[in-house]
């Protein structure tokens, strides 16, 4: 086969144009196969859904101020928390970091001009929009009341709501994740620039690699379980119908085969982002880089074998409980290692307190709490006492909201200058970061307490002894809501009036910083190559201190 080198690196005179200037019409955005533009499309759409999901839960928290409810019927309440779960899990958290920062940064980080299959990438966004359309339809056609877990026989035979449309939305958006996963795996395998060996990949790229693997192998099982539910509901095929000898627990097995790894789909990218941010603002190589890589791979693989800890009280066998409990303790080890390693990264560092770092520290604290409470739930007796209570609610929100959303914000702030070429207001960013951390704790620490005391989840009316905790939690939710709205304001302001950022405002290593901000369509002006390890900050940092920045050797030599 003849080698034909595509001139994907344009002549220098044409290269000054950033990806933002490649066309200003809406159509030029909607048909663009540029990974950076698709990332922006994703970012806008998930933001919309984040706020829809947020409004839903805002109403729920308002309702929960009174033990007998304020303004909702029980059916409305059930629909609100269900739509909150569906939207936040599948339309915000799962695509959050991979589809936005992964899409934008990953190809640049490994020195590629684009992802492996740009048209597939665009298609994945359209699939997301298709799934989203179904969900919006569900929202306006009376909602769905099964909880985001769709357990039969309630979902298949008893619910009087729009289960099939909701399942179809999730089914379709699942294929968008699979497309993204296939794309990233092929990109990382085939398109690393010269010199970018596997163990020179930044940890964010590793996180994207592992998370893509999880998406590709787990999501189809969710698709199938939802298909079976819909087939039972629509055609009456009695797959999970106990009257015909079917077993509702089989659905739970299949559902959690996806939905437990899905938790890792949400948290692994966060780990990647935080590793980048810690290294940059501590100006130090991430402590134990190789251990961090193996820890992520292990989380990705063993994460598939622990799903049964969601079913300790569901009626599965005691032996299965024991096995899943053991594996759940094992999967906690690599997560603990990562927490220690991030802390270790601060040792002998040059720590700064910029906004991305505050968000990352918030992640570290909340992830630690979330991970430790995970140990409680891996212990069968405690799980029996606390499962389906607010303890579980608080636990997974601490990981998925406290952890993932903090890391998402850290990443947004860290790469904002790269994506937009503008600087944001540092004071407001720091203020929002601290508010978010405090608001989160005020919201969810009371939920841990009331969960342990015995407050079950998905309860519209509740015993009045828990009211104090619910009121505290709702108060925290107000703080949290303000903290989530603040970035919307100051980031928009930055977009309009922000200072020019320059190519590398953080003096970060990593290929994505060795190109103009905002980057040109082809990402690099000259073909990048790598001959150092990632995060060579120590020397870089020292050089900067002596005011001799020009001497420093950042990773890569593209300009």
């Amino acid at each position, binding site marked *: 086969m003849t080698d034909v080198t595509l001139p994907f690196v344009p002549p220098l005179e044409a290269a000054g144009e950033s990806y933002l200037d490649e066309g200003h019409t809406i159509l030029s955005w909607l048909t663009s196969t540029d990974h950076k533009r698709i990332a922006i499309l994703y970012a806008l759409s998930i933001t919309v859904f984040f706020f829809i999901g947020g409004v839903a839960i805002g109403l729920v928290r308002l309702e929960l101020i009174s033990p007998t409810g304020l303004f909702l019927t029980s059916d409305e309440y059930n629909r609100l928390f269900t739509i909150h779960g569906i939207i936040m899990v599948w339309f915000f958290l799962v695509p959050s970091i991979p589809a936005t920062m992964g899409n934008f940064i990953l190809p640049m980080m490994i020195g590629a001009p684009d992802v492996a299959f740009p048209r597939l990438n665009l298609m994945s966004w359209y699939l997301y929009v298709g799934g989203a359309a179904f969900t919006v339809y569900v929202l306006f056609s009376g909602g769905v009341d099964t909880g985001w877990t769709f357990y039969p026989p309630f979902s298949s035979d008893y619910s009087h709501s729009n289960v099939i449309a909701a399942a179809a939305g999730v089914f379709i958006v699942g294929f968008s994740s699979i497309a993204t996963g296939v794309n990233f795996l092929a990109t990382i395998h085939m398109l690393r620039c010269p010199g970018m060996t596997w163990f020179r990949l930044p940890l964010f790229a590793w996180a994207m690699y592992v998370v893509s693997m999880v998406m590709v*192998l787990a999501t189809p099982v969710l698709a199938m379980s939802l298909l079976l539910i819909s087939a039972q509901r629509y055609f009456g095929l009695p797959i999970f119908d106990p009257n015909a000898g079917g077993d509702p*627990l089989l659905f739970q097995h299949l559902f959690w085969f996806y939905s437990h790894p899905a938790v890792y789909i949400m948290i692994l990218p966060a780990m990647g982002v935080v590793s980048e941010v810690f290294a940059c603002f501590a100006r130090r190589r991430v402590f134990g880089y190789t251990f961090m890589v193996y820890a992520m791979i292990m989380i990705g693989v063993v994460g598939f074998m622990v799903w049964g800890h969601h079913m300790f009280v569901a009626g599965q*066998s*005691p032996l299965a409980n024991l096995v899943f409990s053991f594996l759940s303790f094992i999967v906690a080890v690599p997560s603990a290692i990562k927490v220690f390693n991030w802390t270790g990264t601060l040792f002998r560092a040059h720590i700064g307190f910029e906004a991305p770092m505050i968000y990352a520290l918030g992640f570290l604290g909340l992830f630690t709490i979330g991970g430790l409470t995970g140990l409680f739930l891996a212990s069968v007796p405690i799980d029996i006492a606390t499962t389906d209570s607010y303890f579980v609610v608080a636990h997974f929100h601490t990981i998925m909201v406290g952890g993932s959303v903090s890391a998402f914000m850290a990443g947004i702030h860290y790469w904002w200058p790269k994506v937009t070429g503008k600087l944001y207001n540092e004071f407001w960013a720091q203020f929002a970061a601290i508010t978010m951390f405090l608001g989160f704790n005020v919201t969810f620490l009371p939920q841990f307490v009331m969960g342990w005391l015995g407050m079950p989840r998905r309860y519209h009316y509740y015993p009045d002894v828990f009211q104090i905790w619910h009121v505290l939690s709702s108060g925290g939710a107000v703080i949290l809501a303000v903290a989530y709205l603040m970035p919307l304001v100051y980031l928009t302001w930055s977009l309009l009036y922000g200072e020019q950022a320059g190519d590398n405002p953080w003096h970060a290593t990593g290929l994505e910083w060795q190109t103009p901000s905002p980057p040109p369509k082809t990402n690099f002006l000259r073909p990048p190559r790598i001959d150092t390890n990632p995060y060579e900050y120590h020397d870089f940092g020292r050089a900067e201190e002596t005011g001799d920045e020009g001497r420093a050797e950042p990773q890569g030599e593209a300009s």
Partner: protein
Amino acid sequence: MSQSDTGDRRRDSAAAWRLWKGPGLTWLALVALFAVSLGSAYLPLGAGNVATNLVIAAVMIALLVTFLMDLKNAQTIIRIVAASGLLWTVFMFALTFNDYLSRHY
């Protein structure tokens, strides 16, 4: 145009047989195995029927994947991908049956 077509045809007939030979043999083997599988289903083997049929299916898929999908010449990474699909299926079966087979209701 017509000249190149005749050239095409001559080359076709020469090379065609070589192309057909390998896949053709695999196809024969597959059809033979299919016949064995179908025939064995009518023998009263008890639980052996399922086992035989599934083993034959596994062999057929192995043949198909190795020779027709050309896994024998594929890069290591592609073999790893193919194997991981199977491995994850094993995870699913092993842990699901770990529950079902140890239940005593």
